[in-house]
């Protein structure tokens, strides 16, 4: 991460920060083992969460689709975590080209979450060897902390994004719901994916929440703080990220170089981390609970509308390949002859309107002002995009490339 240009403290600044730390004082007024203020917000859609840790802001978004499992694990689903530094957080990040720190960030979150088996993978299996759910978490770094007195491109570092990104991934996964599907048919191979309006989507089985806690070491490795700011990062001798759950199980430890630290200090760090992990776990759980209960209340209100739709929304069915209908497949057809026949839920307009007099709306009186624009005003930027069907144009492209899964 040091290949970027960074803020270089003067000797005085460096001494000031270190001296203050010796008497347990930090430049932003926190105590050594305090996190910055943590705020978790959830989007309207399931599986989207925004985490604010101090002035760092990360958005997590979880999605899933049915894929063929890996050959060596035929009865397990997959989980992949994608991180990209958005130029929104820092104009120096280039889109589409993840830097060194983006890769480190992604890997640490991935190891802590996936390799600690926090999410139950076997429950994501639908038909062993044929269909499993592949869960994808996208982490968007929206804001990388803004210190007004520091010029741009000088403070490009991880800036403790790991902790925030990890919490964002956990929050997104905790609220994520996958559509329910059942296996049926003559040979027991036919998979039916139920519309979320018909059957409630299912949450993931999450065994534990691994929380990443980052420590910074100063002096001879005997002074440490958690959740360092960028000023402390510029001065610190080394950094370690411990991913630990509330039971005290260590899920991953990342210490990439830096000053050597005594094993006793590391033991102390882990004890502190497990306390912090318990704090944050309860915080996440509380937020998720209040979100789910709010969502449940919404559902009760919405029931009449969804009941109307219920009759008209057919389940999306997966059939054996006979009719070869390929038009609207979002899931890749599997090689061994299984094809997915998706019918888009056609919602019939219930209240057909005879009276098509649109200007008679009371709610918006401004819209009644009738003015006709001459066609001449429109010709300069008008685009004609017709060959694609309308449905294609409207549909957002959630294309997940298979290649990316195989690398992780």
């Amino acid at each position, binding site marked *: 991460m040091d290949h970027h240009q960074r803020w270089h403290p003067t000797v005085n600044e460096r001494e000031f920060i270190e001296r203050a730390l010796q008497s347990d004082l930090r430049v932003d007024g926190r105590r050594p083992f305090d996190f910055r203020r943590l705020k978790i917000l959830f*989007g*309207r*859609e399931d599986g*989207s969460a925004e985490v604010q840790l101090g*002035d760092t*802001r990360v958005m997590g*978004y979880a999605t899933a689709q049915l894929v063929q499992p890996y050959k060596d694990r035929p009865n397990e689903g997959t989980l992949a975590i994608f991180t990209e530094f*958005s*130029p*929104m*957080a820092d*104009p120096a990040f280039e*889109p*589409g080209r993840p830097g060194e720190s983006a890769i480190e960030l992604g890997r640490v979150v991935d190891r802590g979450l996936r390799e600690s088996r926090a999410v139950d993978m076997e429950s994501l299996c639908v038909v062993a060897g044929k269909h499993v759910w592949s869960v994808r978490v*996208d982490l968007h770094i*929206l*804001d*990388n*902390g*803004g210190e007004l007195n520091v010029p*741009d491109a000088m403070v490009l570092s991880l800036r403790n994004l790991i902790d925030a990104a990890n919490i964002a991934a956990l929050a997104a996964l905790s609220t994520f719901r996958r559509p329910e599907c059942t296996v049926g048919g003559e040979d027991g191979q036919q998979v039916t994916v139920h519309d979320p309006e018909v059957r409630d989507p299912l949450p993931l089985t999450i065994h534990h929440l691994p929380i990443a806690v980052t420590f910074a070491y100063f002096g001879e490795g005997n002074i440490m703080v958690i959740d360092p700011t960028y000023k402390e990062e510029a001065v610190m001798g080394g950094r370690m990220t411990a991913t630990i759950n509330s039971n005290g199980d260590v899920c991953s430890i990342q210490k990439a170089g830096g000053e050597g630290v005594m094993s006793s200090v590391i033991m102390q760090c882990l004890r502190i981390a497990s306390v912090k992990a318990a704090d944050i776990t309860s915080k996440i759980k509380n937020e998720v609970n209040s979100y789910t209960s709010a969502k449940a209340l919404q559902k009760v209100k919405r029931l009449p*509308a969804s009941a109307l739709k219920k009759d008209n929304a057919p389940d999306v069915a997966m059939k054996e390949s006979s009719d070869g209908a390929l038009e609207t497949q979002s899931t890749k057809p599997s090689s061994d002859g299984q094809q997915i026949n998706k019918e888009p839920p056609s*919602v019939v*307009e219930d209240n057909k*309107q005879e*009276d*098509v*007099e*649109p200007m*008679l*709306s009371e*709610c*918006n009186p*401004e*819209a*009644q*002002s*009738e*003015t*006709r*624009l001459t066609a001449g*005003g*429109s010709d300069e*930027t*008008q*685009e*004609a*995009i*017709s060959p*694609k069907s*309308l*449905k294609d*144009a*409207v549909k*957002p*492209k*959630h*294309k*997940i*490339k298979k290649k990316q899964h195989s690398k992780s």
Partner: protein
Amino acid sequence: MEESRADGRNPNQLRPFSCTRNPLDRAHGSARWAQGDTIVLAAVYGPKPGTRKGENPEKASIEVVWKPMTGQIGKQEKEYEMTLKRTLQSICLLTVHPNTTTSVILQVVGNDGSLLPCAINACCAALVFAGIPLKHLAVAIGCGVLEDGEVILDTNKAEEQQLKSFAHLVFPNSRKSASSKEPNQKEEDSERGLITSITHGVMSEEDYFSCIERGLAASSRISHFMRTTLQKQAPGDV
């Protein structure tokens, strides 16, 4: 008549709008613009010195980066970027800062239809918050044409599935004259030309003009909203 749409709106009714000023610390200007459940976060950096190769150095250039919620950027997103770039170029005063680049980054936070209009509105608000000199505001509206030729405004995702065609229209903001208390609405609106029009699907000429007419009428409401939000939040700024 009243509940003609699935969510209970009437054809000309827009979803509730909201705009947050500078939600991000680091960006020079940022805005979170929400139209119902469609939410777009826009951040503006710049103007920073130098233009990219191929851009006219005698004018300011604008670059637009679109970040989808999930996955890679595809053709559709590239098209959005291009549309946004051209639209923003037409509303910015490009000669004030020659040989500079202004970056606009968009992050989709929620998508429930009318994504591009929402993004254009978000960009416009972010540019204002960043203090980029503009000729006027850009106000975008999504109009959809149903099978029976009915035009609905600010379509949501469920509605977009049933549309025959749609048009995304961008207009300049409605002018507000300081002199006369009662501005002549008709005269005022007729001066406002169309900045951008993106249509998908087949629609008759009549339908298109009907879209423009409704869109223009609705845009004055959006521009009023935009103006009040921008004004209301201005004094608290540094």
